[in-house]
Each structure stands twice: as C-alpha cells, then as structure tokens.
C-alpha cells in the first residue's frame, strides 16, 4: 500500500513536473496579428485625368478634348469615378515631371493620368500619356501615339483602354464600334437601315439606304467585317460587308432564315440556322469554299447558334424539349445538352468572348429580360428585366453587354421607342447608348487594332 502510494506520489510529481515543463515549452510566442479582410467596399476608383498639356494652343485644345473623351469612357464603364478637373491642385504644365503625389492624395485621387500633345512638323500629332498610382507613388504605365490630328478621338479611346487594362487587369473595350439597325417611320411601314458608330455613340453613320429591310448584323471576331440579313424580293439574303473597305458581297439566299449567321472565332466560317421542309436546323458554312455542313438534324426548331471562343462548342436555342430552351453541343454537332432549366422561354444565346458565360434573352411572366449563365447552365443571373429587352451582344472583354429595349407605349400593350442600352455583368451599371433614331439588333465589334 505504502509502495503504491509512493509510486503514485512519484508519478504525480513526474506528471506535475512534466506539465510545468510543457507549460514552459508551449508558452506562445507573441504571435503576429493576422487579420482576415473578407468584405470590401466596392466603389468606382477615383481617378484624375488631367488635360494633355501642349505648348501650342491648337494642340492644347486637342489635349483637352482627348482628356474629356477618356473621362467619359472611364465614367461610363462604372468602374471609375473621374474627378472634376476644377478640383485639381497641380496644373498640366507642372505634371511633365513626377507629380506631387500629396496634392493628388488631398483630392482622394487613386489613379492619375498625365500627358502631352505635340504638333509635329509633318502635320501629325504625337500624344504621350503616363499613369501613376497616387498612394503607392508609383509609375504604372505609359504609351505614345502618333497620328493625324483628326484621329484624336481614337487616340483617346486607346488611352482609356490602357488605363482600364492597367487598373482592372482586364482588356478595355473603348476602341470599338457598334453596328445596329436604325429604325424610323410608322410601325406598318418601318424603315430599317444599317448604321455604325463608336461605342460611345459618336461618329455615327448609315451603311444602307433603307430601301431593303435589314436584320441582325453580326461582327466578325477578328476583323471589321459583318454579316447581316436583308430581304430582297421578300427572300432572306445574307450579306458579308467589310466596314473598312465598304465592299459587300452576297453570301447566299437562305429560306426560312430569321437570324444572320454568326462567325466562328477564326472568322473563316459562319454558323447559321436554315429551314429545310419547314424544319429549322443548324448549319456551318466555310466562307472560302461556301460549302455547307449540317450540324443538327432534329424535328424540333434549332436556331440562333453561337460559337464558344475556342471554337470547340456551339450554343443554340431549340424547342426540342417542348419549350424554347438553350443547348450546348460540340462544334461538329454531337453531344447536344440542354443547359437552361428555369421557368419561361430562353432565346438568342451568345457565348462570351472570354468563354466563361452565355448571355441570353428570357421571356418569363410576360417580361423580357437579359441574363447570363455559366456555360453549363449554372449560376443564372438576370441583369435587366422589363417590357421588352432583347438581343444581347458582348463587348470584346466579356464584361459589358449591349441590347435593345422597347418601353411600353400605351395601355393597349404596344411598344413605344426602341433604344440601345448597355449593362455590365453586375447588372447595376445600365446606360442608354444614344442614337439619332430608334435602334435595335446591336452588335459590338472586336477591338479595332
């Protein structure tokens, strides 16, 4: 018994000693503080876009106009908040060396763009720009362009794209154009003309005279070329139109066609739907040989095909499941799978240029909305909803969509004005793109390059 007690006491002592020892060893070092930042405060980035300085008055005016266009581009994107130039504490003339950053911090500018315009002896202008991070006091990027003075607007868009890219990590989309169908006249005698403008609505011009009805222009993803549908003697005819050269050719007459063909990512093929004995299916046309290959053969109506940017898949709409829904299949027509499962009808699917999403028009509960979903149909989100929204087309960076919207006209339920609108992927930044007349069927160009 005594031995047992003795053993226990020894064990107890060892245990206590062990505990003290381990206590000494595990005394925590002064751990460095670690804080997890999990929620942000998403705000447009305040940027200061200063006028481009020039020693001559004429070039100085160009410098001011360039800065105005850059500010407008960045503001419209919803990601930037250009600061009112009257608040600036440093003049453009003093910004030709490293800026005094404290002056820009005072007005809360986080990005600062400075620049210079020089008139060259040959009549051209040289525009230089620099972008600075105000709080880190670091130079971020810079570039210079030399062009004819008349090209100043494009130079501004190119610089805005540089700022957008450097501060968001994504490609810009300001140096782009939009083709659409300009509409005028009464509903029963509507004149529809093909028109083109810069993405900000400037430099507007008509491409057709309105004698034939035009529909659904589509941009080539590789060049400034479009396809569109026009009714010639009441037969749908597809045209291929080069915007830079003005050259136009007939691609063919296609019975029962309601949407113009869309280009493949390489620009060498177009994919389209065509009716054969009243049944609409998807076809692929080689633009070099003009040969046609049938991709779907189904009793349902398959229409509105659009390629994935890697060219491996095609999304289209079909009523093969009983209602109009979205499908994805391999580019050779195999393995068609339905991807939309929500309530209502889905149409006009368009694959995003960056490949991660498909946009669509949805008709549900008497409303037409524009939405996006992942390419497997998951994460459906409605970006805008109303009386009539239709026909989304992606900006080349896959972050903004343009579509057309008709507002309800009167109590009879007829529509009134048809206008172009853009919306970004968040759904919050919705803007009207001003056109001289009504506009529908917009198509966003790739970057002009």
């Amino acid at each position, binding site marked *: 018994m005594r031995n047992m007690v003795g053993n226990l006491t020894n064990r107890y002592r060892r245990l206590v000693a062990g505990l003290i020892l381990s206590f000494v060893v595990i005394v925590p070092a002064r751990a460095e503080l670690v804080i997890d930042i999990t929620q942000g405060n998403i705000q447009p980035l305040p940027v200061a876009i200063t006028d481009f300085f020039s020693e001559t008055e004429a070039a100085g005016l160009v410098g001011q106009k360039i800065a105005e266009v850059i500010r407008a581009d960045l503001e419209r994107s919803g990601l930037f908040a250009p600061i009112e130039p009257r608040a600036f504490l440093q003049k453009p003339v003093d910004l030709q060396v490293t800026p005094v950053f404290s002056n820009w911090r005072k007005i809360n500018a986080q990005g600062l763009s400075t620049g210079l315009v020089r008139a060259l002896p040959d009549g051209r202008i040289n525009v230089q720009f620099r972008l600075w991070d105000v709080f880190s006091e670091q130079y971020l990027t810079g570039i210079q362009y030399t062009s004819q003075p008349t090209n100043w607007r494009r130079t501004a868009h190119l610089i805005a794209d540089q700022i957008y890219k450097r501060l968001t*990590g994504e490609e810009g989309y300001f140096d782009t154009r939009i083709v659409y169908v300009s509409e005028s006249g009464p509903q029963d005698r509507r004149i529809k003309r093909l028109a083109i403008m810069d993405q900000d609505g400037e430099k507007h011009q008509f491409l057709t005279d309105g004698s034939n009805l035009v529909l659904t222009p589509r941009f080539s993803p590789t060049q400034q070329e479009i396809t569109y549908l026009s009714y010639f003697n009441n037969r749908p005819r597809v045209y291929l139109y080069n915007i830079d050269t003005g050259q136009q050719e007939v691609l063919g007459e296609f019975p029962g066609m309601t949407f113009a063909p869309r280009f493949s990512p390489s620009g060498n093929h177009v994919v389209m739907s065509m009716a054969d004995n009243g049944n609409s299916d998807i076809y692929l046309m080689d633009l070099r040989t003009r040969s046609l290959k049938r991709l779907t053969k189904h009793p349902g109506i398959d229409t509105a095909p659009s390629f994935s940017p890697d060219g491996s898949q095609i999304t289209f709409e079909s009523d093969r499941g009983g209602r109009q829904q979205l499908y994805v299949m391999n580019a050779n027509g195999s393995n068609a799978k339905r991807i939309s499962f929500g309530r209502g009808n889905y149409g006009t699917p368009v694959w995003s240029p960056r490949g991660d999403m498909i946009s669509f028009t949805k008709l549900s509960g008497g409303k037409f909305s524009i939405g996006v979903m992942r390419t497997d149909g998951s994460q459906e989100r409605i970006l805008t909803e109303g009386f009539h929204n239709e026909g989304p087309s992606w900006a080349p960076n896959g972050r903004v969509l343009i579509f057309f919207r008709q507002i309800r006209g009167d109590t009879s339920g007829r529509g009134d004005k048809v206008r172009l609108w853009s919306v970004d992927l968040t759904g919050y930044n919705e803007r009207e793109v001003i056109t001289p007349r009504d506009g529908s069927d917009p198509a966003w160009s790739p970057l002009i390059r």
Partner: protein
Amino acid sequence: MAKKTEKPKKKFDLSQISALLDKKKKEQAKNKSKATDTKKSNSTEKVRNSSSKAVDNSLPMSLSERDAFKQQVQRCWSPPTGGVKAEELIVRLKISLNLDGTVQGRPKVVGGGGLRDTFEKVATESAIRAVLLCQPYRLPIDKYERWKDTTLNFNPKDMF
C-alpha cells in the same frame, strides 16, 4: 483520499481567489525567469522568449479590437470585380505600423500569390491601396506590441 482533495473546492473564499491570482502572477514570473535561462543557452529559443516577454506587457487584442481593425481596412478595399475567377485572388500583405497607426514604408506581399499575372497584380495593388488609403488606424496604444507587425489576408471569396 479523494474526499480530502475535493473538500476545499466546495468552499467559496474570496481571499483564496486573490491568492490564486497572485499565484498565477508568481507562476508567470517563474516562467519568465525560466525562459530567460533557456534564452542564454539556446539561440532558437531566443526569439520565442523575447516575444513571450512582450506577451507579459500587453493583453491580446480582443475580438472587438480585431474586428474594429478589420472594419477600418475593409472600408477602403475595393477589390477588382467581374474578372474571371475574381473570387480566387487572395492577397497576403505584411505591414509594420507606427504607434500613431500609420504604415511604415510599403506593405510587403507575402506568399506565392501576388504578381504572377495581370489579375493578381491588380488585386495586389488594390489591397496595397486599401492599406495606405485608410491609415492611420485607430488601435489600442497599450497593445502596440501586439499589432505593430500585422499580416492582412485579403480574401474576396465571400463577396462574389
């Protein structure tokens, strides 16, 4: 035997509690001196024990103090949105703070992430901008040792 040990526990005695508290103080002092001894003989322990000395001087940051710090940084953080896999752009910054809550020099990027591609670069810059923009931070001065070196993990996963 068991009965004997249990008995005193049942009694509630204030003086004993204060004695216990004193004992804890004594034990801390004991540990401190033991740690100092170890310090002399072991260079690895040196760092740890010098830090534990700091523990004695200040209480840990309370949950609400940590949360207040977090809120101050979050207020200024506008991470890039809309990019492909924007939710996966985690940025880790190490910052050193002055007693007045201002940031010493530039925040340091920690870990493998950071500057591999344009998106990471922009995400990192947005985090650095947030840290610099929201300074000075309001933090308990008596706990300076606790927060003078801080690591901030910017993780936008829950935002998208």
